[in-house]
């Protein structure tokens, strides 16, 4: 399987070339175009987070209920995948550590990557924001998307990130949800809300823009529904 990112950084689209028997899983609706010989199916992914309850969990979390699976019966079939919003993509190779991904940033993964829904670590404190998290393990490739550009922060020691800007982070990082440094009052007035404080060594991926903030900036000026 070959994964290429084209037209970076604003209008990034992924071209996946699949060989006989290879399979890739993508967020439902991510398919832009594909060779007519590819077999497509939707799935409620089996496994820990799969089955009907996994599917329900996904629906409650606001994510598409289904994942699409593309399978190539013949060699050299191409598939184009793109996220919904303007922005960049990241090709991450799963290693030993596992990855926690903001659900809206997940685009696709190869079939040996496990996707578990509703990462529990953030459960309580993120309730104010309607995002949920995917706990990914196994081996293979993961495609992540962002609203705006993606930048990597190699964390050694400690780092603080606004929760709305996290795309994904490696599970070797410990984290806690906390107020930004300084007084509660300035945190509140500054609109920063809660931040995530990462500790340890690992890679952290952030996006330059926050989709809900963009939605509020534009949507509030549109005529009422």
């Amino acid at each position, binding site marked *: 399987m070959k994964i*290429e990112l*084209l*037209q970076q950084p604003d209008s990034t689209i992924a071209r996946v070339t699949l060989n006989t028997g290879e399979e890739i899983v993508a967020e439902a609706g991510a398919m832009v175009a594909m*060779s007519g010989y590819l077999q497509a199916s939707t799935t409620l992914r089996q496994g820990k987070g799969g089955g009907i309850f996994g599917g329900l969990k996904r629906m409650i979390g606001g994510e598409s209920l289904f994942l699409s699976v593309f399978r190539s019966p013949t060699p050299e079939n191409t598939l184009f995948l793109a996220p919904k919003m303007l922005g960049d993509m990241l090709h991450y190779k799963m290693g030993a550590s596992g990855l926690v991904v903001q659900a809206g940033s997940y685009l696709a993964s190869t079939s040996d990557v496990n996707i578990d829904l509703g990462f529990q670590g953030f459960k309580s404190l993120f309730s104010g924001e309607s995002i949920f998290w995917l706990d990914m393990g196994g081996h293979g490739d993961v495609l992540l998307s962002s609203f705006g550009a993606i930048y990597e922060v190699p964390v050694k020691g400690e780092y603080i990130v606004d929760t709305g800007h996290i795309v994904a982070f490696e599970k070797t990082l410990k984290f806690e949800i906390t107020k930004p440094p300084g007084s509660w009052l300035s945190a509140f007035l500054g609109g920063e809300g809660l931040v995530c404080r990462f500790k340890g060594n690992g890679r952290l991926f952030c996006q330059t823009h926050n989709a809900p903030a963009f939605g509020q900036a534009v*949507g*509030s000026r549109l*005529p*009422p529904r």
Partner: protein
Amino acid sequence: MPQHSVKPSAVVYLRGSKRGRRREWNKKETDKVLITYSLFIVNSQLSTINCQLPTLNHQLPTATYQLSTYMPSNISYTIEHSPSYAQLKLKIPANKTVLVEASGMAAMDSHITLKSKVKGGLMKGLTRMLTGESLFISEFTAPERSGTLYISPGLPGDIQHYHLKGNSLMLQSSAFVASSSTVDLDSKFQGLKGFFSGESLFFMKATGEGDIWFNSYGAILEIPVNGSYIVDTGYIVAFEDTLKYNVEAMGGLSWTNLRTGILGGEGLVCRFSGEGKLWIQSRNLFHLINFLNPFRPTKNNGSSE
């Protein structure tokens, strides 16, 4: 990966963040690219190549650039700021006329004249309105001496050039940017085929001889179809009419009952078959509209949705 041959000394347009740089592509550099990077498509000429290009110019960051091999054009043009903010700059030869989508003009030499007209008579204009295009098309003429015209499409995205040689090109209804005056534009009513999807699947048919430019939301990618190819209906930009097409709900992709957006998202696809070129866009405007919809304020008169 099949081996491709590239025409030596082809004139290559480098597009991407380097903003339409034009450079001579000599054999030596071609070889370097072929050795170091795998090339996409290419049937020796008149085609688009996508490849990683850091070796062509060491100052360029590692990113993907689109190369278009030289395509004959009667009007000299440059496409700048592609793929995200593409703008078309045309040099209209003396006493020649170009057709431009209504309100597409951004800037021009002051001696260029503009005439707005219902192209091809009222009936054709009305069909064009049905397709979501404007009733009018602007005609820009450069009397006596040549002039420069800048054209900006309404949406941020890419622009692609195509040279018609008596064949026809099908365009997604709002994709038209500009064309030579010798190109004939006709809205093709798709009948039931078009109404199948909730989105309007109208195509504009461009025929004749001359140049045409079309635009997209997001980047444009060229796919050489040989056999069968499937495209989500919201991502089609243009295709050569040697390709047959059929709209279908794809078994594995359909989630009609679960549609959440106000537009699109039905999992309807267009199946192309035969041999010809197809252009797709890397983003779909409907997704942005659907994303913004929940952020609109709600009416306070009790009817909550």
